């Protein structure tokens, strides 16, 4: 891992900004993430830059390698699709590259300050992508996203400062060992916001759909994983009991799927599927906390698998899936992979997850909860499939050609996780029985779907996007208005000193009397008397 490559990875997005204005915009956008991919494939290593900021350090190690791979591929694929963004493409490209720069710094950072820097820059820049559409819902989504993101970032900052209090800006590797409990809790909460765990997930289904297609792809596919990286790097096992994390993960998985089913827009459904998948990732993380780093490859696979396939799905969402059978297939493949189709990486990842959870001692969860969640995921994707098929242009007129990035993404979604699994032998030797068990939910899903189909449409439960948000939002707005009115009232108070300067009239009146000879003479006598008394006394 050469220092030049790391520098290139960090600086290329900034250099690309120069070309963002010109014709080579798409080329710049696609090429920018290449160094990340290269780093993911080359061997691990560390580079230190003591003079930068507070002593920056960059490393590639087992923890961030899968995410680097995911980021490299994901950003390139989504970047290619960015050519389709019609509205203010230059501004979109600039924000796109900013987010990429933040992500690159975050992934490669090996020191505390650097990590936090990347995290914050990525979060803030993503706001640009969320509100890119400029419509009212986009602004509302942007505000929600920003509020939640900043809250999360504040928690992370607090955690980071507490950690740095004892360690200074030490390398993440050394810190992983003893992170004080309170800091761990803060960090966990902060990263949970980014990872979209219930109830902190409300921003995700609101923000992702409004963003342009490539942006949603990257947001759901890659950026969400930043939370995972943070937890892996910083959150110590003793921060929260692993079983608690497990419960949180499963709750998010089920909640995400169920809420997704009640949605009517394809991109929102996909967003909810991300929420539920992230629940599973949290469960895997709980397992890792319980049984140690042996679970790491499973997490890596899970992240990689979900990332690539989700990108493919989002690209599909923009590609008028209903227009032709070929597009239907391109949508079905990643969907099935995600649902856990045997021989596809989805099922591989799920088995890895099952064994990890079982390994951590929670057999009942592994046997019962996981299949149920797989079933729900399948149902959700089926619902997504029906919505996608409905998306065909009204008249035969303008059907946009399939963007090459889409099929590539589908291919990547299928091939790359396998390559990764093979490279890390641990996950390869699945027995036939496990494969069969994986097939069961896939078969059950259409049956249940058929049963539910008869349920009359209007009665079908319809949840607004962001479910819990709808309850919280008005309270938030009321609070903001109250604060605003309070501050306005306070600043309106006039703090002028109430001392009434002796009015000019009184002074002038007394002064004019003092001038008169009788008064002046009288006062002379009084003063003489006083002096005599003072002297005589």
């Amino acid at each position, binding site marked *: 891992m050469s220092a030049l490559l790391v520098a290139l990875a960090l600086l290329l997005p900034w250099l690309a900004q120069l070309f963002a204005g010109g014709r080579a915009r798409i080329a710049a956008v696609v090429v920018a993430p290449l160094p990340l991919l290269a780093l993911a494939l080359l061997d691990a290593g560390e580079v230190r830059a003591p003079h930068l900021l507070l002593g920056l350090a960059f490393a590639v190690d087992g923890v961030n390698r899968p995410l680097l791979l995911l980021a490299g591929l994901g950003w390139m694929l989504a970047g290619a699709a960015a050519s389709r963004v019609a509205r203010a493409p230059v501004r979109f490209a600039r924000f796109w590259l900013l987010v990429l720069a933040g992500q690159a710094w975050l992934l490669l950072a090996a020191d505390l300050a650097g990590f936090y820097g990347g995290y914050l820059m990525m979060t803030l820049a993503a706001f640009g992508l969320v509100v890119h559409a400029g419509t009212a819902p986009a602004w509302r989504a942007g505000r929600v996203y920003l509020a939640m993101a900043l809250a999360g970032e504040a928690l992370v900052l607090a955690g980071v400062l507490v950690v740095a209090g004892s360690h200074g800006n030490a390398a993440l590797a050394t810190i992983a060992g003893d992170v004080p409990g309170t800091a761990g809790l803060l960090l966990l909460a902060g990263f949970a916001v980014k990872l979209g765990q219930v109830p902190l997930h409300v921003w995700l289904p609101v923000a992702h759909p409004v963003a342009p297609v490539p942006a949603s792809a990257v947001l759901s596919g890659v950026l969400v994983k930043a939370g995972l990286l943070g937890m892996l790097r910083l959150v110590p096992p003793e921060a929260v009991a692993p079983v608690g994390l497990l419960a949180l993960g499963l709750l998010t998985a089920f909640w995400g799927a169920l809420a997704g089913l009640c949605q009517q827009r394809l991109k929102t459904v996909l967003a909810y599927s991300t929420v539920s998948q992230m629940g599973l990732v949290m469960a895997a993380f709980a397992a890792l906390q319980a049984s140690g780093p042996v679970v790491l490859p499973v997490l890596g696979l899970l992240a990689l698998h979900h990332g690539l396939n989700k990108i493919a799905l989002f690209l599909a969402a923009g590609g008028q899936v209903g227009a032709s059978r070929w597009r239907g297939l391109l949508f079905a493949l990643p969907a099935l992979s995600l649902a856990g189709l045997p021989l596809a990486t989805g099922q591989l990842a799920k088995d890895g997850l099952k064994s990890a959870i079982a390994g951590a001692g929670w057999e009942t969860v592994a046997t019962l909860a996981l299949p149920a969640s797989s079933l729900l995921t399948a149902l959700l994707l089926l619902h997504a499939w029906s919505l996608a098929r409905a998306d065909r242009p009204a008249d035969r007129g303008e059907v946009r050609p399939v963007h090459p990035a889409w099929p590539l993404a589908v291919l990547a979604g299928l091939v790359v996780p396998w390559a990764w699994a093979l490279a890390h032998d641990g996950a390869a030797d699945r027995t036939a029985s496990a494969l069969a068990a994986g097939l069961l939910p896939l078969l059950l899903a259409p049956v249940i779907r058929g049963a539910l189909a008869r349920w009359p449409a209007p009665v079908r439960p319809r949840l607004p996007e962001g479910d819990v948000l709808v309850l919280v939002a008005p309270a938030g707005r009321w609070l903001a208005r109250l604060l605003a009115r309070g501050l306005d009232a306070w600043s309106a108070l006039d703090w002028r000193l109430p001392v009434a*300067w*002796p009015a*000019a009239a009184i*002074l*002038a009146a007394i*002064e004019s009397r*003092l*001038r*008169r*000879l009788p*008064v*002046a*003479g009288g*006062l*002379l*006598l009084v*003063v*003489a*008397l*006083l*002096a*005599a*008394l*003072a*002297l*005589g*006394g």
Partner: protein
Amino acid sequence: MAATELLPLWVLVPLLAAALAACLPARRAGQLALAVQLAALASWPLLAAAFADRGPLTVSLAGLAPPLAIRLYLDGIGLLLLGLVATVTTAASLHALATPGRAALRPAFWPAWLVLLAGLHTVVLSFDLFNMYVGLELLTLAAVALVASAGTVAALAAAMRYLLLAMLGSLAWLAGVAMIHAGTGSLDLELAGAALAPGGWVSVALALMLAGLLLKAAVFPLHGWLPLAHGAAPGAVSAVLSALVVKAALLLVWRVQLWLGPAGGADAAGPLLAALGGAAILWGSLSAYRQDRLKQVVAFSTVAQLGYLLLVLAMPSAVAWQGTTLHLLAHGLAKAAMFLAAANLVRRAGDPRLAALAGSDAAAPVSVFAFALAGVSLVGLPPSGGFLAKWLLLQGAWQAGAWWLVALLLAGSLLAAAYLFRTLAALLAHRDGAGQARAGLPVPRIAELAALALALGAIVLGFAAAPILDLAALPAGPGGAP
């Protein structure tokens, strides 16, 4: 030997000059006056040198021994006051000569000016009670004549009021002197002080003397005549009156307190005088803040600043006396500069009211700068003599544990800042319709430079205070007698 003999010349030379000036036409008389003042300024260093190596100087006139002969006496404060008189009168006469106006062209103006100078020197040098009376008379009549020289109705009325009250004060002083003379057999300050024994009659005598002086020094509540007189007088005259004439009376208050005090119990009057001083600071500042005419603001500022000079009587210590001496000098320079600058500004705007002075910074920038510099010293902001004086007074008050004095000093400078910056704001205000011509007359360059020179003097005093304070070691009370 030579220096002590030359002491009386400080009075005789202006006296002769006055006599000559009476015979000369106005223009020539002015130049003569300027020449005399420059001579005084030039010879002051010689006097200072003599004082430095031989301490307080005493001269018995006509070679006789006291109590019969009149003695002249020069201590630290007297020497510095002479220096101040020379500086301020030179600058003021330059201003008067440069400013074409009815007052300076009157035939009697310059002779009266020289008599005023002679009177000031007499009072500063005098060590004999009756001689002080004659000196005070000289000062009063000359000052009244100069105030009347303005020629306006207000000036004449103010002069009349000033004359009557001043004469009342002088006669009160004379009554006191008569009693002291009868009681102790001597008019000489030192012998009278020595022979005095506390008694009922002494209290009455000293009370009359102090009351007379307070009236002439325009200390609150007897200050009614000052704003009228100093407001109506021509610029140069009001500068000299405010900076010097009222101070002469205060010098006598100190002399009475220091020489007749210990024996006659006069130091018991210290707290009362300090209280009056404090009241003067507050009343003067508040009134100054409320005036709507520039010269009135400056006049009331005099009433306020004089209060500071009495505070030392409540906390007599070396530091406090040094502070008072420095305040005497700094206020002298600053107040004279302020009055000269004010006269320039009023002349330039053609209207004495503050409201009409807006935009003066464009019309007469040097005068505004001089006014501001003088203001800085009056308020006691750091780079000025006024600040060091306030610093020393605060030190004295703190060591004497007089908390009310500390509070008073701080409040005084805050109030002073209030009326100074209010006035400056009026001067710097944006003048709407700056286009049309101003009603006033052009101000000669020399007049502005005279004001600026005095203002700079007040500021430089802030840095050159050390040598001056060595000169003004504790004013030679009875202990310091030769």
